[in-house]
């Protein structure tokens, strides 16, 4: 997917879009777009006029001229339809490539008798699997359906979906139990329970959305359509009242001139491109490997005020690592390292492993007999090892202090100082004790991702506040927050803390986004205005959020915000451009209307257009061809620059506002030079 071609127009796409642009001529479909619908009515009227002239009417100008106007109006609608169709076709092509991964695959269905699953395996096509069924996947199998691992652990190649070639690990229980249909098991075997009916899996629903089948207009799109309808109405009034004005001034105005003036004045450029822009927005999100449940979610993303980001994986690389050993006074460094290593032998956490790495000694040299490993529990908040009469414990500062003080020993002051120093430097202290005597402190440090603070700076310029969520203590959290450049942090975070923070921000009128993967994130994902679930996350998390990130990349939120802003900006700038065009069109057409009876108005023909006919034709032709010329911009989106809202407005006003005034003057004049050969 991420390697899919970025070319806007490819052969098959254009062919499909071309076909669709005719299908969309159906008034019942076009009715949804009031601007283009009025153009269609205008074209129909012009068609009648052509027939009328053919039958002998003399007052409406030549048949050829009228036919050309009719043809150009017809092209205008086709161009607008084409814009929408090509955007849809691109969406469909994206969806198709997703769907390819989900073609019929044989599934190893585990038969059940009532509620009890037998061990018999039957090969069935994936389409026969139903929600609740269980299937088996072994190394080399393609996973037939979305599901949740109920047993086993496996490495899975998700490149078909994410384009990321590095395999990922998925295992039963916990937050990484979800597998997606179409991905490939590389090693081991897993039992998976199907979580969706065929055609209703999460991705299927998303694909339908991307294809535009169930696309609904977003609130912002509706508001813009109303404004455009308002403009259209104003120009209907302007054109209709021109008839009696012309009567008064003894100036006959041809129907072709009326309709041309009208079509040129109404905002056809934005009217024709509006739905294409919306579809392209979702499509761009998809290209970033984010599937959105609705266009509204993309729009909302552009408005976000606050981002909640998990520290681990987003702000820091992976997990904390041991970086330093600080023995207590009177304890030899080697003795302390020995205690630290022994306490970590059975510690499978990344932190525990990093202690062994740092110590760089083989634990077997210590020759421990009959070790009894003490697992970490939430109650003791420490782990360790017992052998012989030795009891080594490793844990958080307060846990070990309790242990030490309960045994009647004192907790050395210099260790307290060291613990504080480590914490305030953003590290995590782990205290090690042997037989309830403090041996020293291990410093664990987070490694902040390179370049992350620049990204936060960019977000700040967009007006988005970043909040780091971490289980660390406040001191550590504060240090990392400052170092990474986030604006706020939630330390010692429990799942409900995220929820409360989101609620609090929302009460202040802010829009909040968060990213999550676990089932316990689901309520917060649902509460957030934009909830991005990782594709690796649980089904509950994916259901609760309104976007799914196929790459499982937590920094994706930043891109989503930009895509949302781009979507709105593209709409805004093209609206401005479209309306600014009217200035030049007025100067082209209005003198042309009256010049025959009021020759003095020739002074208003500032473009020096050749004749009334050539002026009107040039304006209509310009009005038509500007639509396909802007299709690439509509599909790619206007580039967002985080330079502050006022500067951005100034920039866009200059490019699209002033440009919108100037470009048609040049364009119409050039077209006129060409058209004037015949008219």
């Amino acid at each position, binding site marked *: 997917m991420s390697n899919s071609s970025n070319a806007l127009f490819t052969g098959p796409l254009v062919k499909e879009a071309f076909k669709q642009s005719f299908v969309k001529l159906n008034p019942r479909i076009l009715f949804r777009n009031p601007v283009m619908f009025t153009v269609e009515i205008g074209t129909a009227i012009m068609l009648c006029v052509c027939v009328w002239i053919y039958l002998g009417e003399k007052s409406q100008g030549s048949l050829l001229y009228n036919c050309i106007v009719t043809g150009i109006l017809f092209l205008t609608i086709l161009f607008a339809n084409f814009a929408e169709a090509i955007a849809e076709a691109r969406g469909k092509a994206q969806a198709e490539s997703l769907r390819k991964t989900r073609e019929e695959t044989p599934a190893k269905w585990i038969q059940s008798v009532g509620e009890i699953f037998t061990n018999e395996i039957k090969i069935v096509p994936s389409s026969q699997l139903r929600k609740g069924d269980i299937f088996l996947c072994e190394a080399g199998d393609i996973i037939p359906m979305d599901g949740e691992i109920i047993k086993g652990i496996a490495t899975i190649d998700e490149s078909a979906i994410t384009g990321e070639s590095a395999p990922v690990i998925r295992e039963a229980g916990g937050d990484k139990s979800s597998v997606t249909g179409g991905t490939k098991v590389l090693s081991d075997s897993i039992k998976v329970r199907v979580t969706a009916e065929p055609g209703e899996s999460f991705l299927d629903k998303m694909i339908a959305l991307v294809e535009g089948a169930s696309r609904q207009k977003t609130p912002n799109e509706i*508001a*813009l359509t109303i*404004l455009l309808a308002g403009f259209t109405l104003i120009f209907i*009034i302007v054109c209709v009242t021109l008839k009696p*004005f012309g009567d008064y001034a003894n100036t006959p105005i041809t129907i072709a001139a009326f309709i041309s003036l009208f079509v040129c004045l109404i905002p056809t450029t934005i009217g024709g491109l509006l739905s294409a822009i919306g579809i392209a927005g979702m499509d761009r999100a998809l290209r970033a490997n984010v599937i959105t449940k609705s266009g509204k979610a993309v729009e909302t993303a552009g408005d976000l005020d606050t981002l909640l980001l998990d520290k681990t994986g987003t702000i820091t690389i992976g997990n904390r690592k041991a970086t330093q050993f600080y023995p207590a006074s009177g304890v030899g460094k080697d003795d302390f390292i020995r205690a630290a290593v022994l306490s970590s032998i059975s510690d499978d956490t990344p932190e525990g492993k990093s202690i062994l790495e740092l110590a760089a000694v083989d634990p077997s040299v210590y020759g421990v007999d009959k070790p009894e490993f003490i697992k970490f529990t939430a109650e003791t908040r420490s782990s360790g090892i017992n052998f012989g009469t030795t009891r080594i414990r490793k844990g958080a500062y307060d846990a070990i202090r309790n242990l030490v003080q309960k045994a009647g020993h004192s907790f050395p002051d210099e260790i307290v100082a060291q613990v504080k120093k480590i914490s305030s430097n953003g590290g995590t202290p782990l205290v090690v004790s042997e037989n309830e005597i403090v041996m020293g402190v291990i410093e664990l440090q987070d490694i902040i991702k390179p370049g992350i603070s620049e990204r936060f700076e960019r977000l700040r310029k967009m*007006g988005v506040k970043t909040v780091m969520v971490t289980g660390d203590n406040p001191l550590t959290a504060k240090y990392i927050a400052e170092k990474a450049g986030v604006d706020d942090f939630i330390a010692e975070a429990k799942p409900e803390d995220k929820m409360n923070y989101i609620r609090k921000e929302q009460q202040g009128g802010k829009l909040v986004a968060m990213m999550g993967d676990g089932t316990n994130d689901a309520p917060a994902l649902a509460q957030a205005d934009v909830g991005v679930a990782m594709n690796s996350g649980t089904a509950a998390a994916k259901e609760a959020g309104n976007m799914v990130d196929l790459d499982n990349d937590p920094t994706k939120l930043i891109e989503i915000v930009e895509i949302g802003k781009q979507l*709105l900006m593209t709409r805004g700038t093209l609206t401005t451009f479209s309306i600014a065009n009217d200035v030049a069109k*007025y100067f082209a057409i209005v003198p042309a209307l009256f010049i025959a009876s009021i020759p003095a108005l020739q002074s208003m023909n500032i473009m020096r257009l050749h004749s009334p006919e050539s002026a009107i034709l040039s304006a209509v032709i310009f009005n038509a061809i500007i639509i396909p010329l802007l299709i690439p911009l509509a599909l790619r989106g206007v580039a967002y620059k985080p330079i502050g809202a006022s500067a*951005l407005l100034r920039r866009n*006003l200059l490019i699209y506002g002033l440009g919108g005034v100037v470009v048609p003057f040049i364009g119409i004049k050039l077209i006129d030079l060409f058209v004037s050969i015949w008219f």
Partner: protein
Amino acid sequence: MYSEITGPLLVLIGTILFAIPLGRYIGKLYNGESVWTDKILQPLDRLLYFLAGVNPNTPMRWQQHLRALLTINLVWFLFSMFVLMNMGWLPLNPDQNPSMSADLAFNTSISFISNTNLQHYSGESGVSYLGQLVLVLFQFISAGAGMAVCAVVFKAMKEKQGTQLGNFYFYFVRSCTRVLLPLSIVLSVILLFRGVPMTFQGKDQFISLQGDTLHVSRGPSAAMIAIKQLGTNGGGFFGANSAHPLENPDAITNAFENSAIFLIPVAMIFALGYMLKRRKLAWMIFGVMTIGVLLLLIPTIQQEMNGNPAIRSLGIAQPLGSMEGKEVRFGSAASAFWAITTTCTSNGSVNAMHDSLTPLSGMFAMLGMMINAFWGGVGVGFLNFYVFIIIAVFISGLMVGRTPEFLGKKIEAKEMKIASIIALLHPLLILAGTALSSYLYAHHPQEYAGWLNNSGNHGFSEMLYEYTSSSANNGSGFEGLGDNTPWWNISCGVVMLLGRFLPIIGPVAIAGILANKKQVPETAGTLRTDTATFGIMTFAVIFIVAALSFFPALALGPLAEYFGIIH
């Protein structure tokens, strides 16, 4: 030449300097803060509340505000119809002026309650003194009502989230007694000292040098002239309005009256800045409005001082500029200044005949009314501007990639619907009215021949001006139009009615809906509306929506006339 411009320039600067503290004072009034006039006028306010039986402390929702406004306007309308149609036999009629016909009374009543003061009658012979006094009353209360709804919108813009937007009668009474009344008293006293009459005696008479006996109309006019200028009413005591020597005797009264025309409209903007504690926003709005006025004013002064090109082509020098239809005691620059300020502010009093303005000046005067938001009428001028701000906020919000918001409130489909309707209403009323009249005139030339003094492009301008003036609630006339006929009385009456109340209802509704929305806190991504960039955006929206819709009509009227003359 330069000395001629000095007068208008001083009036412009002086008025703005006075409008700033006046705005602060008005802001304090609407906030309910104590002001220095409390001691003197509090008892009067209390008396009025007591007589009307209203409690000025009961807060109202926006719908209730509108209900109160429309109800009192209906009562005023009925009262006015009664007086105007019966004043022939009612007291205070020393000159034995007749009662009005029903269609003229309809037109006049709407004209005065809508703060338009379009006059299809002549004050000297068309109304009794009682009639004049009733009209003066309306000049006060229609201006007060406009300021009151503006205060409602200010209050709504200030609201964090809520539906209670103060009490309509509180704003209304305060506008009348604390702003309009004191300023009117001061201005009418100045006018009295410069020779404007204030009497209930009938016509005066004198014998001219030729030995004829001349009758001179007079009456309680100083009171009316002060409020007609301050309240952007514009309806004069005499038919010739402020060109009449008894309304506007000399250059000094001209300066004061002209200053009074735009004093309160400008002060309302500074009142907004004070009430909302957003001075910069007020300056942005003031800046856009003032630049708009200057863009119309400067070429108009230039055109008028340059003289008429048709006369110039005959080889006749015009050192005083184009003086047709102007008073020698004012000159062309002061007349041009008045023409633009009176049309921009929906005042509509005139000190020169707009029919005789050079074609482009006539167009700029019309543009002032077509836009109707560069300063604009007392209170309502800001309401029109507010609609343009909403549209500008919407488009520019999109341009910076954010759902549009104004003062922390999101602009959504409902607000856009109202704003679009209001923005297209003004072109609709003007163009449809002119189109119908053009149609009637073009297809029944014999029947309606009496309408137009001039044929061709200028005749078209006369009709266009009349509807523009009605829809903008301006009230000035291009004259040259035989307008006291049922068609003009009724059609202009309807246009004035719609042009007054819909553009009040719309912005109040938008502001009321926005007030009840949750306020979004400002961040670096929020588009600030108090910047020059946003000002340019608003200006562009006004130019494209308000000015461009009239381009074809203007091309047929003043532009065709202008190019016809210079060729």
